[in-house]
């Protein structure tokens, strides 16, 4: 048994017995895999594993990265003369990958739309800068993309598939022991997992929802600077950005070097915003800076009151339309308009980012008008329902009278007969 545990002996036996047999079966010789498939981790690479690798599928082989000659059936395969490089040092990995991936002409033959700026971005990233300073603990290409069974990013099993990115980053960034010596927190993944963005991505399956790389970049990963937070958020939240641009907060935040959106919404643990964030309640974010009773405090109170009024009016319309529907009344047109009232509420909530009472009031008034119309539609439907039931009552009395009359007539004629 000890004999089989001897790694060198296993490789030797494979060279003597296995390889000639493989050749006899007509397989393309790859002496690297022949040996590495029987080695233990981390040296083990099986043919199945490598066949799943996107590079292998595009016709590249071990020698493309490691040099040497896999066609040689003995230790000649790893001869220095054949350009064998052996294990690639971590510090050399970005350069090695970039050798092909930065070559536009070379990459075009595999995928003409694939970007070729990964290496140039990487050297500007925090990872790349630290690696240049000799910190080999930082992420290099293979840490995020994998190695030997590397999948294309659109493959759901890829480590950089949108649903897997946060986990991939967390492997280092949520590991306090590994991150020791780097002055950044390690709770980002835990916070992100509780955020509205994570819910959209992982629970609702919206692959366009933000993950780590959406805000930090991928190859050029770095925290957004104070001045660029608003720009990062505005890539998705366009209208909120436009409103914030119109607000007095824009200049005030810049003057105080406050990082835009995240002052009120936080960064990794962004929760679903509620109207309670406005005003002076315990969940208010305004009170972080504003003192109770100041001009701005009054304005937010009025804006909050407007949102509450509109929300209440929509709910009342919804209730009365629900009653009409459960009575069998056809109110689908009002239901359609109800969506417009909801849109006005959403728009008002977006307009809050301008912190201008007049603009918010416009949206609220528009929504209130639609909600009032819907309440009236519901009331009309209920009135119509009562009218129908009254008509039914009269009809049933008339029908009962006819039936009674017929019965009396039949009795009379049959008694006479």
């Amino acid at each position, binding site marked *: 048994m000890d004999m089989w545990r001897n790694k060198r002996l296993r490789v030797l036996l494979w060279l003597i017995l296995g390889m000639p047999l493989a050749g006899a079966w007509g397989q393309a010789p790859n002496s690297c895999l022949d040996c590495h498939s029987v080695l233990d981790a981390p040296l083990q690479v099986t043919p199945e594993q490598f066949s799943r690798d996107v590079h292998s599928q595009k016709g590249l082989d071990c020698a493309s990265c490691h040099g040497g000659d896999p066609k040689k059936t003995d230790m000649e395969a790893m001869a220095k003369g054949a350009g064998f490089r052996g294990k690639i040092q971590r510090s050399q990995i970005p350069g090695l990958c970039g050798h092909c991936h930065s070559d536009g002409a070379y990459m075009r033959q595999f995928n003409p739309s694939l970007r070729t700026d990964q290496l140039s971005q990487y050297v500007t990233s925090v990872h790349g800068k630290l690696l240049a300073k000799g910190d080999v603990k930082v992420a290099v290409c293979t840490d995020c993309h994998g190695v030997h069974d590397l999948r294309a990013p659109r493959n759901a099993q890829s480590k950089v598939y949108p649903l897997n990115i946060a986990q991939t980053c967390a492997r280092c960034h949520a590991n306090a022991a590994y991150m020791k010596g780097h002055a950044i927190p390690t709770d980002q993944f835990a916070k992100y997992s509780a955020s509205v963005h994570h819910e959209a991505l992982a629970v609702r399956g919206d692959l366009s929802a933000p993950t780590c790389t959406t805000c930090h970049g991928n190859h050029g990963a770095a925290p957004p600077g104070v001045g660029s937070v608003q720009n990062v958020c505005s890539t998705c939240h366009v209208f909120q950005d436009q409103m914030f641009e119109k607000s007095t907060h824009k200049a005030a935040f810049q003057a105080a070097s406050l990082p835009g959106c995240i002052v009120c919404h936080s960064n990794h643990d962004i929760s679903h915003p509620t109207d309670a964030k406005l005003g002076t309640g315990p969940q208010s974010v305004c009170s972080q800076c504003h003192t109770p009773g100041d001009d701005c405090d009054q304005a937010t109170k009025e804006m909050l009151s407007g949102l509450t009024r509109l929300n209440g009016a929509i709910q009342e319309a919804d209730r009365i339309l629900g009653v009409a529907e459960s009575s*069998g*009344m*056809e109110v*689908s*047109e009002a239901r359609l308009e109800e969506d417009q009232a909801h849109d006005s509420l959403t728009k008002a909530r977006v307009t809050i980012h301008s912190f201008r009472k007049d603009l918010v009031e416009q949206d609220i008034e528009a929504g209130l008008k639609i909600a009032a119309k819907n309440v009236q539609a519901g009331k009309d439907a209920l009135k119509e329902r009562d009218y*129908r*039931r009254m*008509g*039914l009552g009269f*009809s*049933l009395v008339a*029908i*009962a009278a*006819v*039936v009674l009359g*017929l*019965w009396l*007539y*039949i009795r009379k*004629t*049959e008694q006479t007969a």
Partner: protein
Amino acid sequence: MRALARVRDWLDERLDWAALIAPLRHKTVPIHRLSYWYFLGGITLFLFLIQVGTGILLLLYYRASANEAFESVQYIMTRVQFGWLIRSIHSWSANLMIFTAFAHMFSVLFLRAYRKPRELTWISGMLLLFLTLGFGFSGYLLPWNTLAFFATKVGTEITGQVPVIGKWLMVFLRGGEEVTGATLTRFFGFHVAVLPGIVTLLIAVHLALVQRFGISVPPGVEAEWKASPGAARQMKFFPGFFLRELMAWYIALGVLGALAAILPWELGTKADPFAPAPAGIRPEWYFMFMFQTLKKIPARIWFVDGELLGILAFGAAGLVWLLLPFFDNLGRGRGRRMILGAGIFALAYMAVMTVYGYVAK
């Protein structure tokens, strides 16, 4: 009044009106403890007449195209004066008509009114029942709402399973490979032209046969009357039975009005052929027992496809049911007992599978 009498005399002189209505004047209806079952056929006829009347009114506004059908029904329900009432009565009456047609069929079966010489009356009635189901199936799609669209898709898919002609039948019904606007146009054509024409003709035949052979007396009552001839009682169709039938029609009208006013027939949402089928797609209640059977039947029974076997079984059962009177004289009362057993089994099976279809997830 004198003018009316003159018109009557004028018609009588030319058409011999008195001779024409003489059979009706002499027509009688047996009176016994089970006579109330005789009203079911008349109520079904009344509901059919309601269908014709409300159907014609709906035609004034309905548009049979995939782009306009739903909106036109919505318009009828919300904008047209009493449109909601007409449409709701049409839908409720359709369902009640299918119910009373089934009840009429089972009452005839259990009272053994199909016996010689009324075999043809039974066959014409069964054909009318099948055509009534065809009315239900074709009319269900016409509002072009989500439930109707997917139920029709499933229903026509089932016809596609029929051996040899299944595929052709499915394409014929759908007007192509898929349920589209072409299917709606076809179903509209069947519903307002083909089926009413055939059904009107068959009703005429059915009523003529009822008139020709008279109304059947159940064998038990017949035996009692034979034992004591004095117990036998008859009622004149005019006016005695006719006025009672009229009372039943008025009551049916009241029930229809109440259902339409208290539970107006809902419209649902417009069909989107590109949307995924919503969960819990079900046919109308009168197809539920067949649907549930086909749903629960094993995928393969021996070496035969389960669903195909189910369809063949229902087809065979329908054919046997159509020819039921011819089995009555088998053996010494064996055929009669078999028909009674089959009737009880069919009624129980339909009831249980229908309830199961509604309560099963």
